[in-house]
């Protein structure tokens, strides 16, 4: 493990998840006992949530999505969304790192191909609870991850790749990074492949920008110049257009939405506690925020229902390549992302209005200021307008029939 964290999560009994329901329960314990107490320091110091990720590794939850035949827990995408939700309720940074990692795991297990290298890698991923990061964006492509400038340069059995990545979240803590690049030097910008680059001696990372941001400060989303020399077997079998449509986009939109739901849920819980405590102080009276609380609880229910519905829909066609490449599915998942990213800000802002100055301050038990800063990342880091523009383009030809 390059981060050298051998810390034992003493506060969580030595439990190891063996099934999906186990995994959700255990993720809840890790979230409450390890992630929550560290959440404030992770945010303030803008540092990686190493305690929580170590505890998730010890609980075997880092390999939760990997099929059981490779030693993983074989969790469904519905169960993964529940894990992200519960982590998000206690530490949004932990939840985001966990979600981003699972997106890479999903890409590997669904698109690597049944080669000895990728089959062995999936076993290894579970055995060593490897943490995966991602380098999809590139300097000078204007934020469009479906285009690359850098290209795979194959020399015999080995490939070389050099990429200017404006963001690689937790690159310095990850065991490997999945990198997009053009298929070869002559390939079109949109003809991309995904390369598995272990962060060992074969890969060098030179930090180019830092990460001192409004929210999600613990994701350590700095920029890097990445250079890697790996065997040609490290290129995933499927093209990135398919990886993106079938897996990266829907898994990201769903798992992010789930962790934003976690942030919103905790903010509403704090608003609820605030109103309840106010009511107790003056028995028989209705606190001023009570009506607003009733309203925001309804909005939260809407958000939760949309996410659960989308999770079930994705689960139902998870292995149906044809349905996954349909426009109606892409539209649905894009819609989910924009809706969730908008609602999380709306809900947390309303929770803050209910808690008033106690919510605005960082040092009260009703504080939701970190929640609000973290929530803003949802519509900014993956820009809602970009997602809407993609949907608008599809709607020119799509018909609901």
């Amino acid at each position, binding site marked *: 493990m390059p981060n050298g964290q051998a810390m034992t999560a003493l506060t969580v009994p030595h439990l190891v998840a063996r099934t999906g329901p186990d995994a959700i329960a255990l993720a809840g314990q890790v979230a409450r006992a390890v992630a929550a107490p560290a959440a404030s320091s992770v945010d303030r110091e803008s540092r990686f949530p190493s305690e929580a990720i170590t505890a998730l590794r010890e609980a075997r939850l880092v390999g939760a999505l990997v099929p059981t035949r490779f030693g993983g827990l074989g969790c469904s995408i519905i169960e993964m969304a529940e894990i992200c939700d519960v982590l998000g309720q206690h530490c949004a940074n932990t939840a985001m790192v966990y979600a981003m990692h699972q997106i890479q795991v999903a890409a590997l297990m669904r698109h690597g191909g049944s080669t000895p290298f990728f089959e062995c890698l999936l076993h290894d991923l579970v055995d060593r609870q490897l943490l995966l990061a991602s380098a999809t964006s590139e300097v000078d492509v204007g934020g469009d991850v*479906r*285009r690359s400038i850098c290209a795979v340069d194959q020399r015999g059995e080995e490939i070389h790749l050099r990429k200017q990545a404006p963001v690689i979240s937790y690159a310095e803590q990850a065991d490997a990074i999945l990198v997009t690049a053009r*298929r070869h030097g002559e*390939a*079109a*910008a*949109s*003809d991309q492949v995904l390369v598995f680059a272990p962060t060992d001696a074969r890969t060098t990372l030179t930090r180019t920008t830092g990460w001192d941001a409004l929210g999600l400060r613990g994701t350590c989303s700095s920029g890097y110049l990445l250079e890697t020399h790996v065997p040609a077997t490290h290129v995933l079998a499927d*093209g990135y*257009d*398919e990886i993106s*449509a079938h897996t990266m986009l829907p898994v990201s939109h769903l798992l992010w939405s789930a962790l934003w739901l976690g942030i919103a849920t905790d903010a509403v819980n704090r608003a609820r506690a605030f109103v309840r405590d106010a009511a107790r102080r003056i028995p028989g009276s209705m606190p001023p925020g009570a009506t607003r609380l009733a309203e925001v609880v309804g909005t939260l229910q809407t958000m939760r229902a949309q996410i659960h519905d989308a999770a079930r829909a994705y689960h139902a066609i998870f292995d149906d390549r*044809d349905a996954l*490449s*349909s*426009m*109606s599915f892409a539209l649905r998942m894009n819609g989910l992302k924009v809706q969730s990213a908008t609602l999380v800000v709306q809900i947390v802002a309303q929770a803050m209005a209910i808690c008033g100055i106690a919510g605005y301050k960082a040092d009260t038990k009703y504080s939701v200021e970190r929640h609000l800063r973290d929530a803003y990342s949802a519509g900014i880091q993956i820009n809602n307008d970009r997602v809407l523009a*993609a949907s608008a*383009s*599809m709607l*020119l*030809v*799509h*018909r*609901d*029939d």
Partner: protein
Amino acid sequence: MPHDRIRSIVGEHGRLSVAVDKLDDTASLYQAGLTSHASVNLMLAIEESFGIEFPERMLRRRTFESIASIAGAVGELTSGSPGA
């Protein structure tokens, strides 16, 4: 020939990184640089040219994979025998 008409529409709207006459009918348009945005413009132009509307079940990746696959879909929609 619908193939020729489709080929010229692909050349005009596909924004490919290679010349369309360098591609054979079964070559991957995605590998030739067809993006999802360009594929929408291509669909609109084909609908306009052939006076057809692609139903939802055809709005997926494999329909626009190659000139031959587009011709297959157009043929199905213009033959008057849906599901053929």
